[in-house]
């Protein structure tokens, strides 16, 4: 029996047992689709987080008060208190490091914004003019805060705030009240949406000294530092640690997080998560494989007389084995392909429902899903195929 005839004959058999074949194909397809969709989800989440972190800057270092070893993963941010504060003087020292291109001190708080008979509590960022290039922000109108530590009471509004407070007129040049101080709107941020946990369309940015006065603090929440190049990130980190240790009476009481380290950590965690969900989905493929074996064993039992006949008219055990084996290959192959398409469709739906999530299944997951489906189906067919091949022709013919 030629290979073409084996494939054609087995294909006809698969087609003729429509319901049975459809159920196996469906089980196999759902397994593969689960692998594709779940890895698309996992990898999408990974890329989403990476993109979010990438979008906050380039060659970025974040200086936090307190040490990670004592304060935990995010010193200062969680406990709110550290032995020694970061100050504007510290920030200025960092600006003098040769590896540092620019820096932006940062204070964060909340205050009431009022203008044009409207009032709203908003998130307030206090910083300097470098915040825009360091954080890859864009201005839609006007100009950002004056360079240096601002002396004028300027304010930059998020896109949504500008639109909400001044829907019919230009926000630039308008006077607003933030807390108990009056500010002149100097710029409006371009709409960017959510990034790193807060919506930049609904924040206001004021000069750092005004922010510190408003929140009655001399301590900084963070200092954002941009190294001159990727290769300068580590030297910059060492420089920052050395300078601030010296400034803090020889005590290393700050933490420097590099963007690269965060990216690598998240990449690793989310990649592991993707692999884990792919593994869980792969279990469904093994279940599908067991289903293939079960159905094929039933098929051997149902088609015993047919197997006897094939032997009587000259089929060898190898022919019989190949026929059953080819049936499993067809079922697995069609199931895997259908599953791949279903998975791609599922990923597309995910992307349509959550446009911000780049839910594309990685190529390795699709290939692995298809290969595992084929291998499972084929392995599962070995026992039934071998049982069919070993059937005694006389006994098989005698079975009704």
């Amino acid at each position, binding site marked *: *029996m030629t290979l073409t005839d084996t494939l054609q004959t087995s294909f*006809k058999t698969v087609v003729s047992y429509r319901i049975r074949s459809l159920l196996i194909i469906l089980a196999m397809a759902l397994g593969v689709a689960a692998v594709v969709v779940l890895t698309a989800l996992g990898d999408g989440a990974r890329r989403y987080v990476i993109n979010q972190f990438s979008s906050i800057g380039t060659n970025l270092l974040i200086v936090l008060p307190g040490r990670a070893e004592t304060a935990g993963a995010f010193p200062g941010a969680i406990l709110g208190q550290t032995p020694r504060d970061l100050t504007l003087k510290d920030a200025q020292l960092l600006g003098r490091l040769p590896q540092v291109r620019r820096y932006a001190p940062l204070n964060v708080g909340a205050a009431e914004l009022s203008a044009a008979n409207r009032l709203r509590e908003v998130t307030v960022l206090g910083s300097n003019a470098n915040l825009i290039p360091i954080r890859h922000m864009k201005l839609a109108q006007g100009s950002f805060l004056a360079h240096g530590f601002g002396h004028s009471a300027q304010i930059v509004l998020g896109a949504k705030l500008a639109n909400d407070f001044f829907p019919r007129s230009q926000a630039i040049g308008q006077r607003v009240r933030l807390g108990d101080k009056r500010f002149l709107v100097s710029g409006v941020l371009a709409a960017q949406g959510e990034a790193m946990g807060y919506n930049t369309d609904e924040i206001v940015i004021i000069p750092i000294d005004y922010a510190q006065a408003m929140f009655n603090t001399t301590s900084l929440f963070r200092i954002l530092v941009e190294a001159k190049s990727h290769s300068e990130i580590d030297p910059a980190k060492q420089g920052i640690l050395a300078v601030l240790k010296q400034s803090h009476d020889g005590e290393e009481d700050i933490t420097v997080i590099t963007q690269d380290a965060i990216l690598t950590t998240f990449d690793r965690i989310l990649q592991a998560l993707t692999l884990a969900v792919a593994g869980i989905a792969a279990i469904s493929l093994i279940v599908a494989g067991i289903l293939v074996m079960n159905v094929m064993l039933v098929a051997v039992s149902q088609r015993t007389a047919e197997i006897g*006949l094939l032997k*009587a*008219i*000259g089929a060898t055990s*190898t022919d019989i084995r190949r026929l059953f084996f080819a049936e499993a290959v067809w079922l697995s192959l069609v199931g895997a392909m259908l599953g791949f398409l279903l998975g791609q469709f599922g990923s597309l739906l995910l992307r349509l429902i959550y446009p911000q999530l780049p839910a594309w299944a990685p190529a390795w997951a699709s290939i692995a899903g298809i290969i595992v489906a084929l291998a499972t189906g084929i392995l599962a067919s070995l026992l039934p195929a071998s049982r069919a091949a070993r059937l005694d022709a006389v006994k098989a*013919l005698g079975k009704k």
Partner: protein
Amino acid sequence: MIRLTAISRTFYMGDQAVYALNDINLHIASGEYVSVMGPSGSGKSTLLNIIGLLDKPDSGLYELDNKPITDLSETEQAQIRREKIGFVFQSFHLVPRLTAAENIELPLILSGMPPAQRQIRVNDALQAFELTPRAQHRPAELSGGQRQRVAIARATIMQPSVILADEPTGNLDHQIGAEVMLLLENLCKTGTTLIVVTHDRELGARAHRQIAMRDGKILTDHTHDTD
């Protein structure tokens, strides 16, 4: 052409040995029309299975065309079944999901014949057995006589030298059965050896040579001229 020498076949029912064939010696020449008759359990079907290489004797020698074939490998025996032996069964043994034409084509597929040649052979067979209008019908859509004609067409499609028929008219009424026997006997007239196993004395009497079996042994072996 078929020579069985001291062939024995024993089955075991628990500890008890049942001698299905007991020291059978038989020679059947090419083109002979032989009927094998006997009561149930006499060994006639076992004899047919051994001649058809579906079963192996426990002892003895089986020669086909002067070649010993008892000890051939499974693949070699399958090739002989494919090329030299055609089976016709009482219950037709057609594959229910295949059409009449596809059932007839099965032995050709197993032989590895190219599709174009297969098509010609199948069409010839359909025509010879007056099955052309039923070519695309499945067994369930055929009458008993048509089913048996499909089975005979399948058994003869490889132009075997031996046809083994096990109760070929057992599931057919008298008239259709007679028509089927005529088809088989016509094959015999073209030089094919025909061995028919039957309970039916009338059917058995049509053969040139009649063998009666009992308890795994040949009881009588008569040859007569029916022409």
